[in-house]
């Protein structure tokens, strides 16, 4: 049952939603107040991390219909019928940027990396030849407490050059 126009609750206790996670259709029963992050974890997606839990740091970023969103602050029920992409779904692309980040010394603990890579991929799909300022603006919501951002910026600029 799709959510549109329907009461999605099952006896007031749980809600049934349909997500396409990394191109695989899933039929999920969860709590009405569950956030997407929790549902992804329950589905065995281990790459998505959580830090602030208040939509501030970008660590929990996933792509919803190709757009970066904070999965810690997005109700899973709102994502009903939509496409969710995590790093598991874009491994080839993630490897490409990941290698460039390694070359530029842009990763330390790596906790912010999955969310960061997904935002970079969304940016590549959305912006043509972004300037340095446009890159910084697009990525401003992905905080990293280790790197100092310069290595990340160099790696992203390299990736944008070879990807266009």
């Amino acid at each position, binding site marked *: 049952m799709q959510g549109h126009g329907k009461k999605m609750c099952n006896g007031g206790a749980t809600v049934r939603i349909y997500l396409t996670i990394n191109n695989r259709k899933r039929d999920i029963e969860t709590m009405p107040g569950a956030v997407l992050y929790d549902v992804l974890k329950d589905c065995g997606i281990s790459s998505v991390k959580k830090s602030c839990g208040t939509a*501030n740091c970008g660590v929990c970023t996933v792509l919803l219909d190709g757009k970066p969103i904070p999965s810690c602050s997005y109700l899973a029920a709102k994502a009903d019928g939509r496409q969710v992409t995590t790093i598991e779904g874009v491994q080839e692309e993630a490897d490409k940027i990941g290698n460039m980040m390694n070359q530029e010394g842009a990763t330390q603990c790596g906790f912010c990396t999955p969310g960061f890579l997904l935002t970079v991929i969304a940016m590549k799909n959305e912006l043509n030849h972004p300037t340095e300022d446009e890159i910084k603006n697009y990525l401003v919501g992905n905080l990293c407490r280790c790197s100092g951002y310069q290595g990340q910026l160099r790696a992203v600029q390299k990736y944008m050059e070879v990807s266009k």
Partner: protein
Amino acid sequence: MNIKEYIKPSHIDEAYELCSKGAVAIGGGAFLHLGKQVIGQAIDLSGLGLDYINESDSHVEIGAMTTLRDIETSSIMKQNFKGVLPKTAASIMGIQVRNVATIGGAIYGKYGFSDIITTLLALDAQVELYLGGCMGLDHYLNSSIDKDIILKILIKKNISSAVFACEKKTHTDFSILNMAAALVEGQLRLCVGARPGRAKLSKGAMYFLKPIGSAAAAGETLSILVAEELQFGSDIRGSAEYRRELCKAMVKKCVMEVLQ
């Protein structure tokens, strides 16, 4: 967050009926953690076709479920009101939040930290409610209406100049103070938000119709007037005294910019 029941109506009548009985309308949901922790019935408004930006000869209309990112990237919004709404939207947190947070949600939440409310007040925006019809945003924010549904925001194309400014500790934090100024049919509207209370229009600035002398002199005069007129408070981001001084500097800059 504890939600007992989640409902996604496909008709506005159904959504209104539920809200009038106490259900809580959910916009983007990004700031749900700041509100009630237990919600009986949550109403998802995303199936009602309220995400659009349209323009006519006289108005721009923004559907209540339009995201801040849609406002930021919309060519209609860039071409109208000196692009002040895309500029305001772009200053709000990260792209992840802007992809989720809706303009209707920001207004319904009446958040003190909101940057977009400040700019909309300066632009003399109207809100259209399902039952209550059209009213000034200022009136809506000061009312106790909470069981109606915001359908859209309307802004008249009678604005010759508009600016927005904010001061933040980091880009992704809420503003310590935000400000917008606009010339609406030649009248100056200056609004200050994140005081940290909800955005407020300066009545003094509104009566400042024909500034005497240069834009710089007008900025100087108004900076004292506005800082004295409005109330400022203290919180984790800054003291009332700091905000008042900051307000003076920002008024000068905004007034000079909007008058030039």
